[in-house]
């Protein structure tokens, strides 16, 4: 069942078409991923879903109600973790959490109980009394997330919540997302880290330049480049003869070389190894190792746009 539906949504800032007619839906209980490079329009899309921006045109419905016409329909149910830290730096972590809980109608002992629970979840307890401005980047991120969770939102939107933090904090955040989802929370997760999206999301939309260029489960997306494989071969040396011979092998579409390493892009390459080994044996080069890379979203993105997800 769809919790959120976005239909032909557009947002133009003067000439900039930040979001240019996107359509997708988010099902109850899933982790939905919005993957795209910098400037793809992810944050703009989220700002419209969270009622901060009015769309230039298009529709957003939450539980069947248009939130463009009735922002109240979503506000209380929604938790938003903004891309940039949005906290009061001169107040303590605790005071910040109190305020945001209060903003969503929590009071008294209920509020205190939730703050206790959430500080457990985000793994910040002993430093709650310190001012935010004294926190490390990772701790700020955690409070930034915690502030969106206090009122137990039905839908949680996280806009690149792991940017600029250490791997430990990052893993903690990813695990938190999975745990929250297991408890029944629907989550929209945006990132330009394809590993994160692969790890977390059941369904994914890939955005680029304000448009969705592909949508589906991870398997469905990878199917777009059906059978395509990347093969890394390390050799004792690489020369032009070798390259031209390798290029004659059937299904090899592309050969890239880095010093003594060759990266082949192949199609349907089940029987390619026999050819690869025998053809190499004809040359003066010897294979040291072969590594087959499973197709991933990075490859899908590259295939669809001809550019890398991150520079």
């Amino acid at each position, binding site marked *: 069942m769809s919790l959120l539906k976005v239909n032909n949504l557009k947002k133009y800032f003067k000439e900039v078409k930040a979001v240019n007619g996107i359509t997708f839906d988010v099902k109850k209980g899933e982790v939905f991923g919005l993957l795209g490079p910098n400037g793809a329009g992810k944050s703009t899309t989220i*700002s419209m879903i969270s009622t*901060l921006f009015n769309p230039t045109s298009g529709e957003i419905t939450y539980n069947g109600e248009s939130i463009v016409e009735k922002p109240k329909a979503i*506000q209380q149910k929604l938790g938003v973790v903004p891309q940039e830290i*949005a*906290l*009061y730096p001169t*107040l303590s972590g605790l005071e910040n959490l109190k305020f*945001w809980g209060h903003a969503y109608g929590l009071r008294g002992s209920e509020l205190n109980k939730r703050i206790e629970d959430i500080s457990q979840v985000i793994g910040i307890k002993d430093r709650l009394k310190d001012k935010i401005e004294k926190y490390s980047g990772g701790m700020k991120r955690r409070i930034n997330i915690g502030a969106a969770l206090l009122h137990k939102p039905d839908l949680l939107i996280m806009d690149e919540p792991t940017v600029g933090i250490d791997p430990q904090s990052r893993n903690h955040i990813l695990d938190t997302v999975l745990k929250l989802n297991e408890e029944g929370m629907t989550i929209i997760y945006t990132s330009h880290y394809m590993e994160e999206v692969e790890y977390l999301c059941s369904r994914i939309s890939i955005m680029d330049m304000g448009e969705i260029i592909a949508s589906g489960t991870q398997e469905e997306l990878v199917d777009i480049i059906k059978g395509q494989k990347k093969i890394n071969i390390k050799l004792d040396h690489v020369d032009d003869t070798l390259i031209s011979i390798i290029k004659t092998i059937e299904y090899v579409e592309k050969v890239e070389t880095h010093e003594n390493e060759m990266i082949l892009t192949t199609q349907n390459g089940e029987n390619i190894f026999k050819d690869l080994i025998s053809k190499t044996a004809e040359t003066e080069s010897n294979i040291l190792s072969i590594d087959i890379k499973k197709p991933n979203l990075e490859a899908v993105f590259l295939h669809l746009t001809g550019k890398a997800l991150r520079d």
Partner: protein
Amino acid sequence: MLSIILLRLKKLKGEYYVFLIMTALSLVLAFIFSSAYNSDYTPMVLIVNNDDSAYSQKAIDELVNSDTFNYKIVSYDKATEEVRKGSALAAIVIKENFGESIDNNNTPTLGIIKTKNDRDIMVLQSIMNSITSKMISNIKIAQNTADYIGEITDANKDELFKKAYDNAVKGWKYQKTININVSTLEADTELYYDNTIHSIIGFSLFFSMYTIVFAIGEILNDRKYRTWQRILVSPISKTSMLGGNLVVSFLVGVVQIVILFAASQFLFGVDYGSNFAALATILIVFIFTVTSLGLFLSGIVKNHAQLSALTPIVLTSTAMLGGTMWPLEIVNSDIILGLANITPQKWAIQGVKALAVYNEGFEGIVTPAIVLLGMGLVFFGLGVKLVKYD
């Protein structure tokens, strides 16, 4: 709205020292400025005597006898130099034909060299006018007396003149008719009291405006911290957000004004009249107007840094125009007096002074309160429209 109010109060708790500094500064400045009007400092006035008649000597005697200023006789060049340097307030120049003019029944002239126009210069000119006119009268009286007595007796006219003149001068000692002008300006005690009250009211209003405008300007910091956007996506409505901020800024203004006015009453003994309700009314309307002004200013700038640059310009210029720094009574320019009408400060001072200085009741604050309320509503309307919501 309650969330926002509690939040602001919590934030204020961490910034109370700014508030205290503002309060202390305003009291200190009010004190310094008001005492400046009453200092023992006597300005130096130079006299250049280019006329060697007896009349000029008499004029100098008269001047030196008035103790408002210190006098020194110097050359013309020295006088211009010292006045330009600022080591003397002004120089009086007695022209060569001063005595001759009096003899020929022409109006004698005294020149004055000055670099500025201020209260002291006004006083000096007034003294000069009064002394010359008094002198001319004395001389005319003495001449007529000497002529008349000389005709009916054989007495020496010159001696008669001298005697008659001295008598005439003595006669003035006990009659103040002609130098009324001077004595009003010299009546320093009355003026001192007014000026103290004026500076205290002026500085209290001036500084509280800063506090209030920057209190409402906090919404710009919210945008910087992005908490503004976060509040907008929460169930808190725009009205509550703005309302909460306005309420707290208003309360901050009330607390500041109460402290300043109470302090001035206890520290300086200012008497704000007996009509407390009228005083409260005019001050509350003033705080509302300034809160709205703050909202308006926050609406036209992009961020807090711009507000910090714009506010002193707006508040200081309107404060000068509106008479918080000096009483508008000493301003002559019609343009400035006209412009003063569009500053909230002028009306607030007028209202408070009506109660504190002129002992009026509610009737004294009706016009100022209505004008302030009107300004406040205009700023409020514009401010609400200008505030950016994304």
